[in-house]
């Protein structure tokens, strides 16, 4: 059990974040305030990968690691679209994923919003000239905020959420 006790007492999450991710704390606190205000303390997010290279998913998953720990700011990735407020879409929208993507969107209760992350959903990225790609996402759904980057870094995604919250507050 020495491994667990070492981790418990020597490697605190708070220590990591204060020392290495100061800017995340500032952005996160701001995010938390607006999520509290607009979404009643919880913004639930569902992800659909419509044909990415898996780098965007890695970065979205990284938001849950101790450096970022997005849940403490009130943002949670949920398993079912029925629980979600926001749909994040990554990837270039392949023909085979078009239907599942639209069905996921349909199953989110209103009001609902779409955020696209990464360069592919906006333009099709390097795959736009393919017989098998039918993006961009904006052809099918109304995109509230786009987070660019290939892939967007976790901190860029947090900034994207901030932009989205600003939009929500002003509308």
């Amino acid at each position, binding site marked *: 059990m020495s*491994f667990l006790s070492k981790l418990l007492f020597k490697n605190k999450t708070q220590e990591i974040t204060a020392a290495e991710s100061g800017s995340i704390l500032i952005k996160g606190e701001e995010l938390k305030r607006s999520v509290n205000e607009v979404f009643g303390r919880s913004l639930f997010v569902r992800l659909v990968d419509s044909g990415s290279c898996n780098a965007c998913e890695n970065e979205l998953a*990284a938001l849950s690691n101790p450096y970022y720990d997005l849940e403490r700011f009130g943002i949670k990735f949920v398993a079912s679209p029925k629980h979600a407020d926001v749909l994040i879409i990554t990837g270039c929208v392949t023909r*085979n994923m078009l239907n599942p993507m639209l069905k996921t969107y349909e199953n989110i209760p209103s009001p609902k919003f779409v955020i696209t992350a990464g360069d592919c959903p906006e333009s099709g990225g390097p795959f736009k000239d393919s017989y098998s790609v039918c993006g961009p996402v904006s052809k099918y759904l109304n995109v509230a905020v786009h987070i660019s980057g290939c892939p967007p870094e976790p901190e860029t995604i947090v900034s994207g959420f901030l932009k989205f919250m600003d939009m929500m507050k002003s509308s």
Partner: protein
Amino acid sequence: MNKIMLNKHNIESSDFINLTDNIKASGKYLLGIAAADERSLNSKYAVRYFFGGGGGNIDEYCVNADESFQSISKICPAAKMYEREIYDLFGLLPTGHPDLRPLMLYPENWDSSVHPLRKDYNNLTPEMKKYGEYKFKEILGEGIFEILVGPVHAGIIEPGHFRFSLAGEPVLQLEVRHFWKHRGIEKVCEGKDFKEGLDLVSKISGDNNVNITISYLEAVENLLNIEIPKRAEYIRVILAELERIWNYVRDIAWIFMDIGFALPAQSLFALQEELMRLNKILTGHRFLFNSLTIGGVNSDLDSAKLKTIENTVKKVENIIKDCEEFILNSSTVLDRLEFTGKINHKTAEELSLCGISARASGLSRDSRIEFPYLIYDKLNLKPVLHDGGDVFARTVLKIKEIYVSKKIIEDLLFNLPEGDIAVACGNKPEAYKYAIGNSETSRGNAFFYIMADDNGKIFRLKYIDPSFRIWPSIQYGVLGNIIADFPLINKSLNLSYSGNDM
């Protein structure tokens, strides 16, 4: 420069099925099948079979075809998926194939007359409507029920459909339906130059882009007749091993997550974050995108960077050692990992697995050792094997591989040769010459077949991802296991959807 010998054989399609038996008996295994539309050259399609093993050479058997070719799936089950793929994309019928359901061109979206990899197919926007329905395999009987999972999963992962048939908790059958993310990369690459191809290839599977790119560059630099500087070879290997380490750290973290040990899991996720930040320091990108170029590498490693790498890999080793001790001494961890998701030696052999999945089932398959590239032949690597075939074996091997990678990196850091990091490449490839490239990613063998056209552009590019070879094995690994162990088995293989779907 490519060190692999390619032995080429031209044969008749009808003879090949008999020959396959002999090839298998000689200890060789299927690395992949690449078809190409070469009607503009000799009015035929070419189907090339690549076999490896039994000494560092690769055997290529080329069969010419008009409308059909002989299926070898009955003798070599590993060929099954490739033949279905060729039937979809080229419309060549593999005669005698037991299962000709469409693979990536879903009948729900695609007209069955569409064969996009034929050279005369140019329609980028075929009509989108429902043309038919895919038939899943069914098990019938009293008390048997189905669980359908995906394509959109509960977690932050890629899409894929899994259909379980169960009697109580144990799984009777699993059918995996993939290719939701089929992006048609091979067709997009055609007519592009090698530089544009590099950008596309690095986005086949983002988390393994360095190793996949190395494989691509092995083939391209062979075609262009480029010898890259020693320093560039060393840096490529260092980056490749760093990528392998961060992949395995993440994989082990997910194993802990799935068995309910959040604390070690989060500690490893934090370590993964540190490794990705190291990547950013070294090359300016967290996934090492665009760090390699034709003829060398894009960013040099100065002494400060080398020091940072050294410190980080030391830290990784210490934490992973603690993890290993914890896994080996905790009965609750062992209880979940041991005997779960067992892939037998025979199954692994018949499906021609590669990478960790093969080595965990006792097959000595590591491209760095079998078909060495860059400077791997000088590193005296020994294959790290386990004969358990279960989740435990795969997890332990990932830990051991981290130690191996750490040692490789340290050896190279202290012996980095001076000199340039890239050479200029003005050469043009010979018209209609082809080359192969291979490398070992964190999942297994990444294999490229590339043919140039008479303008120095890509005529045909075929990439075989390790995940494409390994995915079918999960359908055997889960049999008899309880459904609740499926996520764990899936994570222990941690295969790529994007690399598989292409």
